[in-house]
């Protein structure tokens, strides 16, 4: 359990760069120009996906990350999830993290919803017994009726998202990482997810939400980090102007 005074997430001068490979050269070219190819391989250009990110996420905070495609949002989340390691700097995460990136990582089409939920829950850090005890809650949350015991390949995209989200919120994370997943699923389900996110927040769960939907972030987040080309452009409470003016107000 993280102590209340310590931030749940700390990024200290974190950079992440990827080596660019260029177009594949083909075996003929590689063999004919081997020395040149090897020389170039040693000095390949790098792409800075995230450049010197410095910030902390406090306990219980809902922290938004906003930015256009390719600005480093997903890299930031993968670093917080522990899936990537930084090239430079240090990422510190205190407590149990539950990534809700691309719902249902590790789901398999031939397994039923129940079997997938069991395995996914364990992959996300629960013991077999804990998942068993929570299966009923997951089933109720996903609300996909008898499909729960059907193979996943018979599911619609929305149903897969429901199941994935159901498992994730039942892992009692200290930190929940949310990536655009809310885009799938119908309005009623999205509403329920957001309600659940609020409920988790009241229980003290810290959230890191990535989106390019300003409105969503403005509604839920305490602070929003804006990324552009891997650099932090701003870190501040969301701008009230992002919310649409309510009809009848003012």
């Amino acid at each position, binding site marked *: 359990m993280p102590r209340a005074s310590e931030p749940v997430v700390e990024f200290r001068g974190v950079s992440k760069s*990827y080596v660019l490979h260029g177009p594949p050269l083909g075996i003929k070219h590689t063999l004919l120009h081997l020395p040149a190819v090897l020389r170039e391989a040693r000095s390949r250009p790098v792409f800075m996906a995230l450049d010197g990110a410095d910030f902390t996420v406090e306990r219980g905070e809902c922290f938004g990350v906003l930015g256009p495609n390719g600005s480093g949002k997903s890299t930031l989340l*993968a670093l917080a*999830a*522990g*899936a*990537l*390691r930084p090239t430079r700097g240090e990422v510190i995460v205190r407590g149990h*993290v539950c*990534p809700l*990136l*691309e719902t249902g*990582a*590790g789901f*398999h089409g*031939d*397994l039923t919803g129940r*079997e997938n939920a*069991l*395995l996914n829950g*364990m*992959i*996300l*850090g629960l*013991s*077999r017994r804990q998942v068993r005890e929570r299966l009923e809650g997951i089933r109720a949350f996903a609300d996909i009726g008898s499909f729960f015991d059907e*193979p996943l390949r018979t599911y619609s995209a929305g149903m897969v998202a429901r199941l994935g989200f159901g498992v994730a919120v039942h892992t009692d994370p200290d930190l929940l990482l949310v990536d655009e997943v809310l885009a799938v699923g119908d309005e009623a389900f999205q509403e329920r997810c957001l309600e659940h996110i609020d409920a988790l927040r009241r229980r003290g769960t810290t959230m890191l939400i990535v989106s390019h939907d300003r409105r969503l972030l403005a509604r839920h987040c305490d602070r929003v980090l804006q990324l552009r080309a891997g650099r932090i452009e701003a870190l501040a409470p969301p701008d009230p102007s992002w919310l649409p003016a309510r009809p009848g107000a003012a």
Partner: protein
Amino acid sequence: MLSAWRHHLELIAALVGKEFRIRYRSSLLGVLWSLLNPVCFALVLYAAFRPVLHVPTDDYVAFLLAGLFPWQWFANTVSSAPAVYLGNATLVKRTALPRMLLPIASATNHLVHFGVALGVALPALMLTGHRPAAVWLAGIPLLLLLQGAVCLGLALTLSALNVVLRDLEHLTLVILNLLFFMTPTLYPEEMVPEQLRAVFAVNPMYHLVPLWRHLVLDGRLDGPALAGAAACAVAALLLGLAVHRRLEARLAEGL
């Protein structure tokens, strides 16, 4: 710390269970295929080689089977290893699941299949008049351990290496073909020319297949072959751990 270990063991069991379910869910004969595969392979080889290859044994089918079961275990582990990380890309890219659990689960899966096959094949062997030998009690666990280590080491190596070098997937199959003919499965090990034995010895199955065959059919455990197998097991395991440790951090980016 203890609970982390327990969680990892549970996860390996769950991942192996997943493989079993996926593989046999819509198949009629199910887990029987772990047995039928080597048996069918043995019949094919029997038909193909009995007329041309003179092997001094009165029961060539039993001879083939005793070698093919362990060979299939080895071949299945090695041929599926390069796909381990590629087939689980989302898990690697999106979660902090300890990477190594995936190749470990894959290797365990094939070990379990072999165990099932052995559990049926040994009683069947006794029905045909073979007597169980006391040395089985020590020999079977020992060979399981040695071949298990070989398989795990190669699974760790190939799964991680294939992420950065995709050609490996194809190379593996070619090399596996070569190794099959460098393994005394079709022929007794005495038929390997003296001057080639040192070369063949780098092949772990060169030691393990005769070991299994003599253990099961003749009730004996060969010392020199055992030493060779142990050396291969240690080498494979060290290679696997070194390669995997080196590449582990790059897996998520390579996928």
